[in-house]
């Protein structure tokens, strides 16, 4: 059993027809229910629900406070290498893009870790492009061993691994995995991933599940908003999160809502996702899966990020650089994408506190 079978159940569903049939009454009925099914999720993603965002927000807020308290966990990404063999039309690391490529040495990794940990952050997300030659699992393991001294929680956002490889990185000290399917629609997936190992849709789709089987603690999934109609993509993302939560109850599942940002290269075929739609997706996820974590990165503007806190965000990045060695090195690489919220960790900490929320720096430790 794989999530792919779940995907196939809905792949050919006529979403437009379903949405056309949704009335205001249907939305209100879903809002009155304590437990939602997949059609309820779709109802909350429908155009009809767009007129009920305030009611959705009130309920999402109280569910979030109940399950997570008034707290937001802070983390930051650390780019280890941007070598990549894939041709993904939407990504700055695309092998065809003529950008400065770099891979940190273990000494540089330590320097970067020291600089980041001095800001008070205790949770780190390690990133690489997909290059098993330049940044193989053994390199990730070495990096984790160096970084462990400086951080209490280490997550990875790298190319998909086999179950055995996940087991090895977990043993080295990794407790979280972030992996976005990018786009659940199989045909679009094939179109935007022009060449390279990332073309294997199913290998990527099953990656979070392999990590769950290898006993990872946290899994963070998502679709890159803008590659397809966000209603469909968010529906499949929600289904995927539910699938993982139901099947691997020992794993904390969270969802990111990344919107495409400007980047090196030229991908013009973007389905727009406005702020209101982003909010609708977030609220629908919270109501559908009250215990799922919701992550908002610095891709979003600071004002928007601050306003999203009360709607149910549980994790936020801060003090971000998307360049390899971006925190401590004088010779930086080119970035994966442009960030929007450029505030320091301290500024984000203050902003969260001013909303009446507690910024949490540490929520795990190596045991």
């Amino acid at each position, binding site marked *: 059993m794989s999530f792919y079978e779940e995907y196939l159940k809905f792949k050919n569903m006529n979403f437009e027809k379903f949405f056309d049939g949704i009335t205001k009454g249907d939305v209100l009925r879903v809002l009155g229910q304590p437990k939602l099914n997949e059609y309820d999720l779709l109802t909350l993603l429908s155009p009809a629900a767009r007129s009920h965002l305030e009611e959705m927000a009130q309920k999402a807020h109280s569910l979030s*406070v*109940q*399950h*997570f*308290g*008034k*707290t937001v966990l802070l983390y930051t990404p650390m780019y280890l290498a941007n070598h990549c063999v894939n041709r993904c039309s939407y990504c700055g690391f695309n092998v065809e893009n003529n950008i400065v490529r770099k891979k940190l040495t273990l000494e540089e990794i330590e320097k970067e870790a020291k600089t980041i940990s001095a800001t*008070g952050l*205790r949770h780190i997300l390690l990133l690489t492009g997909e290059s098993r030659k330049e940044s193989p699992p053994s390199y990730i393991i070495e990096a984790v061993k160096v970084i462990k001294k400086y951080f*209490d929680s280490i997550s990875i956002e790298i190319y998909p691994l086999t179950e055995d490889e996940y087991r090895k990185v977990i043993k080295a000290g990794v407790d979280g995995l972030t992996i976005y399917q990018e786009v659940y629609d199989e045909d679009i997936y094939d179109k935007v991933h022009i060449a390279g190992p990332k073309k294997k849709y199913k290998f990527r789709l099953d990656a979070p599940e392999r990590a769950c089987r290898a006993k990872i*603690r946290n899994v963070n999934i998502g679709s890159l908003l803008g590659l397809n109609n966000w209603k469909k993509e968010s529906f499949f993302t929600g289904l995927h999160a539910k699938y993982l*939560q*139901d099947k691997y*109850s*020992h*794993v*904390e*599942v969270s969802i990111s809502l990344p919107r495409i940002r400007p980047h090196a290269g030229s991908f013009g075929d973007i389905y727009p996702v406005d702020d209101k739609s982003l909010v609708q997706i977030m609220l629908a996820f919270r109501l559908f899966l009250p*215990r799922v974590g919701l992550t908002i990165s610095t891709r979003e503007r600071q004002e928007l990020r601050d306003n999203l806190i009360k709607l149910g965000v549980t994790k936020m990045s801060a003090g971000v650089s998307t360049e390899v060695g971006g925190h401590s090195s004088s010779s930086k690489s080119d970035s994966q994408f442009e960030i929007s919220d450029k505030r320091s960790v301290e500024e984000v900490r203050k902003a969260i*506190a001013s909303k*009446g*929320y*507690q910024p*949490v*720096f*540490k*929520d*795990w*430790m190596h*045991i």
Partner: protein
Amino acid sequence: MDNLTIGGKELQNRLFIGTGKFPSKNMIPKVIKTSGAQVITMALRRVDLSSKEENILDYIPKDCILLPNTSGARNAEEAVRIARLAKAMGCGNWIKIEVISDNKYLLPDNYETIKATEILAKEGFIVLPYMSPDLMAAKSLVNAGAAAVMPLGAPIGTNRGLQTKELIQIMIDEIDIPIIVDAGIGKPSHATEAMEMGASAVLVNTAIATAGDPIEMAKAFSLGVKAGRLAYLSKFGPERKFAEASSPLTGFLNEQ
């Protein structure tokens, strides 16, 4: 004095407080002060000794008893490792065992909890295990060396009160070590109810931390716990199906 004795410590206050979910850590000392709570639980995963500002321990008065919990443990082995870390970090030898491998409902795993309790009690910890109310599991915890048992009133964070009332009552009636109702208590009246039933103490976090005014709510809970305990000690009059006048009109017929 109606003290509660756990692990050789005499406690005057029967409200235990959790430190998660607060909008600001600055509220924690005030909540502890207004409630008079003496036992304070905190997730070890949140303790950061390297940070002055973020170290939760700095917000807990020194005369309180620290009850670090093993939040995040998915089995006995992880709970044991976290407990040992807590001790090594200077959090004392009290430990609240939480073993949860179900992130959907956050229900504890009694079997793994019993295993962890046995190991840690042997190592000299004062073990307070969080559990799903079940008489046989509670007896096993007693045999494993628990200092008290902490059954849940309702799933954690739900504020739904004593949904497991019947099972907790049986535990209170049958188990000789203190029963501390943990999780699900959403209102001071729920805390009163638990104390009226004969619970030795209650542990409250979400209901205080997420209240509009956590500090005043802490005071309300403290009063609720005291009222319930006093009522329990005062012994209730019998409940009857029909009304019975306090000054009966036919009493003279029995007076000869």
